[in-house]
């Protein structure tokens, strides 16, 4: 995948909580990306096998809302995102994301 600012932002958001299920809306809030940018990235990651998707296990009648679709990081995805973030960290194009990289540093090491 082409290394873009949006991709790195999504990768950072996912890598910050690799074991948690990820929701489209939460990710867009966290990264500040529009849906038109975020969803294509998520679907490319799905196609590459970096993420798997599923549906929330709830009863719409009881919870009064439909189940949400979640994404989870795969082992392959974890490896690929790690490599992607390592190369992005030294790339000057993503200098503005330094604080996010710093917060993630212990996980990347």
């Amino acid at each position, binding site marked *: 995948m082409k290394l873009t600012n949006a991709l790195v932002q999504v990768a950072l958001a996912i890598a910050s909580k690799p074991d948690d299920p990820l929701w489209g809306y939460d990710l867009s809030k966290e990264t500040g990306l*529009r*849906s038109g940018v975020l*969803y294509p990235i998520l679907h490319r990651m799905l196609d590459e096998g970096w993420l798997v998707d599923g549906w*929330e296990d709830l009863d719409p009648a009881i919870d009064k*809302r*439909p*189940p*949400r*679709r979640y994404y989870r990081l795969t082992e392959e995805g974890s490896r690929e995102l790690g490599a992607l973030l390592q190369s992005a960290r030294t790339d000057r194009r993503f200098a503005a994301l330094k604080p996010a990289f710093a917060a993630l540093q212990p996980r990347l090491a």
Partner: protein
Amino acid sequence: MLDLLDGLRAWQLLIVAVAVYGFFPGVVLRFILLAFRRSDPRRAEILAELRAVPRWERPFWVAEQAEVALFEGLLERIKSRRKTSQRLSLLKENGPIIFMKPHVKHGLLSKSTYGRGTSGLVTNIHTGPRGEITHIDLRLPDGKLVREVPVDYFRA
């Protein structure tokens, strides 16, 4: 006077926009999501996400989904339709296909059974989210149209 009318028109437009996006975002969103194919999980995904969006943000969020639906849903639909018609013409060229196991089709008040070995010509194919063929419509030798038969019935 004309300024006053223009102002009035702008107000009317604002009221309509607030009513449509503000009070009925779910309805508007459902219309927007029609751009995605019926089998596309994004229809249900985006609709479910709406509940997580704070009310005051919903009109803007719904408008944002129009972009997703236009570029992701509609373009994908066009691409998939082109691909589907290519595959359909290939299937038609190959001649009739045969039921490999009996198929029972339940109607509103009727039930039709198509035995193993029944053959028919493919008239349409239905695809899943990844472009895989899931169901087939076919015309039997007696002219009867059988719609949406799962593709498994034609596999050995």
